[in-house]
């Protein structure tokens, strides 16, 4: 016959497993890349690519961004709704700048490309907000 103490240990283990799994499963990892091209002082192309990470990312989360969330778990939709805030956040994280300018027979043309290389972000979805932080 099983003692009362043994049952308590079992229930504690079960609860901890449930809590741990719920914590780990709500945090998901996404790969995000961003690039925009400016040609002759005019925006030419802007690309923001988001996808789920197929493999586990390494690194520790840094510089988190908190976005208001309406009980959704769709990161693309969330970022689309808060695009300006997210792009400002990406700018703060740091962008690669590449600028090429050519002056041929006194005619000038320039191309500037700002790029966020594909980075793994950890996203924690909660009821009212979502935490996004890059893993470095």
């Amino acid at each position, binding site marked *: 016959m099983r003692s009362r103490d043994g049952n308590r240990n079992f229930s504690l283990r079960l609860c901890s497993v449930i809590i741990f799994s719920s914590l780990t499963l709500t945090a998901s990892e996404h790969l995000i890349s961003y690039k925009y091209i400016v040609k002759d002082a005019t925006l030419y192309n802007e690309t923001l690519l988001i996808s789920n990470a197929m493999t586990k990312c390494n690194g520790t989360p840094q510089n988190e961004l908190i976005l208001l969330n309406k009980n959704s778990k769709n990161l693309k939709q969330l970022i689309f709704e808060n695009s300006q805030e997210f792009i400002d956040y990406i700018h703060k994280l740091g962008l690669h700048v*590449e600028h090429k300018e050519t002056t041929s027979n006194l005619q000038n043309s320039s191309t500037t490309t700002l790029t966020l290389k594909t980075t793994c972000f950890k996203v924690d979805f909660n009821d009212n907000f979502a935490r996004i932080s890059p893993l470095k």
Partner: protein
Amino acid sequence: MRYSILLALLLSVSSLFGADKASNATVVEQTNAELAAVRVAATQAREEATLATIQATKAKEDSKRAINELAQVKAQREEELASMAAQEQVLKENRSIHISVVGQGVAPMNTSSPAQAYALAKRAAIADAYRAIAEKVKGVRVDGQDTVKNMMMQKSTIRTYVQAMVKNANIVETTFKEGLCEVEMEIVISHSDFAQ
């Protein structure tokens, strides 16, 4: 008759002696004149030599002055360079440098609304400001090529290239006027950002 012949002979001989004396006198005069000419030439040569020595001393003084002036110019240049180096911003340990730039961007022609035009122009201006920061912090690679054919310029090309990673740049002010967006952006760089 005999005396007359003798007299004539005596006269002729005396005339001959007189002629010799006259010729001797002319030779002496000539030699004296030559001597005087040589003396004059010698004095002229001496004067020329003294003039030459004076000119040489003057030239030496001029060269000394030129050397002194050159040394002064060099010293001034070094002082200017030292003052420029003192004015130039150098990132020292436990210090930070504040860099401020203005980027400009233009809205595309085919925008659906003024708000979209503003947003797109702002993106372009931000990219320009990032480029300006990268140019200031990291520098620009410049490449030029001119083609000359038959003594005439055929083609002139200048290429510039900037590549950098810009982090923590902040927008200070944004203005949008007559289709042109200007973004003032600043960045604070500290020594620890570059410390290995």
